[in-house]
């Protein structure tokens, strides 16, 4: 991802919008007995688009903002989100994503890991909670919901960040989630060449 000033603004707006949407909308919903959490989903998506450093920095900043807005213990969400953002980015840097299902499954797995990490930190901090089936169900369902929510949200984030995404030449013409959508300008250029050559 190429970070320009405009893209940095877009990233900031995505983070703020995501936190506002979470605390004002998704936190009120009850789906399959649990509350959907889009914050890890957005951080993982940005890690997948931007790489490890972008994922970690965005994760840290998003966690800090979330903890500040909700007046929670600072650092807890940051620690969890920067970890999943970094891991998503490392996956993106080390592996070619050629199947559009891979990001969705990765988002599900890393959201489950984030929920488990959050639970582990809370228990370490002294929350007297038995590792009950309820907690395990909550963690599992969070991952499942993240996969479902990623279906519309992941392409939306890609669309927002499209100008910053570098089209990978190795991806070819397949429908890859990391494509930057640069096929249209090529066609325009071809038309111009044809016009210049006098071919109608």
């Amino acid at each position, binding site marked *: 991802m190429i970070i320009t000033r405009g893209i940095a603004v877009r990233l900031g707006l995505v983070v703020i919008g995501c936190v*506002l*949407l*979470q*605390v*004002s*909308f*998704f*936190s*009120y*919903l*009850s*789906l399959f007995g*649990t*509350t*959907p*959490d889009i*914050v890890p989903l957005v951080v993982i998506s940005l890690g997948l688009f931007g790489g*490890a*450093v972008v994922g*970690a*920095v965005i994760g*840290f900043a998003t*966690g*800090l*903002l979330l*903890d*500040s*807005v*909700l*007046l*929670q*213990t*600072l*650092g*807890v969400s*940051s*620690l969890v989100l*920067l970890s999943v953002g*970094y891991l998503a980015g490392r996956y993106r840097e080390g592996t070619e994503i050629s199947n559009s299902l891979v990001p969705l499954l990765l988002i599900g797995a890393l959201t489950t890991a984030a*929920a488990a990490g*959050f*639970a582990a930190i*809370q228990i370490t*901090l002294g*929350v*007297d*909670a*038995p590792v*009950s089936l*309820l*907690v395990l*169900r*909550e963690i599992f369902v969070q991952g499942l919901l993240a996969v479902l929510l990623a279906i519309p949200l992941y392409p939306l984030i890609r669309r927002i960040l499209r100008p910053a995404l570098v089209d990978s030449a190795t991806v070819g013409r397949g429908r890859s989630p990391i494509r930057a959508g640069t096929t249209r300008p090529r066609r325009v250029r071809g038309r111009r060449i044809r016009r210049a050559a006098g071919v109608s």
Partner: protein
Amino acid sequence: MYRKQVRRRRAVLVLLVVVALVLLSTQFSESQGGPLHSMQRAVASVFGPLEEGASRALKPGRDLVNWVDETFSARGQNGDLKSEVQDLRNQLAKSQSAEGENEQLRKLVGLDRGGTLAGYKPVTARVIGRSPTVWYSTVTVDKGSSSDVKLNDPVVDGDGLVGRVSDVTHGTAEVTLITDNRSAVSARVLPNGPEGVAEPEVGNPDALLLDFIDRNQAIHQGQLVVSAGWSNGSISSAFPPGVPIGKVSDATVGEQETYQRVHVTPFADMRNLDFVQVATGGPKRPGVAQ
């Protein structure tokens, strides 16, 4: 070049992890008026109006999604509620006659309390944000210190006890719900039941556990649980006595345990709070910070 990139990436990761850990440990050891808490309140104050706007704008969408979810669960609850209404009608008839007697007796002993929140000034507040996890059950309301809301003020809704104010900014306040893992409410089982401590059942935001109830005490399903308003002169509960909390859904006793585990279903629907009342300006409660 590649090695440089790897070094940079690792350095960023380590730096961020260290900063997060420093923030975490510093905030734990810091007082409420410390710099990190102040910074947090400043951010919350800035985001307060944004949250309020987003909350209002997104309410129809929330209601629609919850309506679908509730329609499925309401089918199962219908039969149970019909029989409960019958029981409650019988109880109402009994309690109305008891209320008349109670009023006369109160006048006799010189007490004149209008209700459980008598002596408080209720401030109605809109819920504008809430925490997404089961580990923190908190909501943000749109009234703060500018409306006389203070730390540890009790918060109720039309159904019962909701929680207490755990942080205040100028225009907003954070309410820690009774289902939060940091919450513990001294509670009493009605009519003549014992007192215990109502704590959250972690992982289940719709349930409370009433602890420290002797195993030999007879507790039945459907009994009401209210706040005990416990005080020993130097320390006391943050909640006034008699505020409805919930009803007993189940009571179990382990073979080796001294106390029984009483499961309580809260009256207030913690997932669908829109408006709450913050009971401000109440009597001083010893040991409760304000």
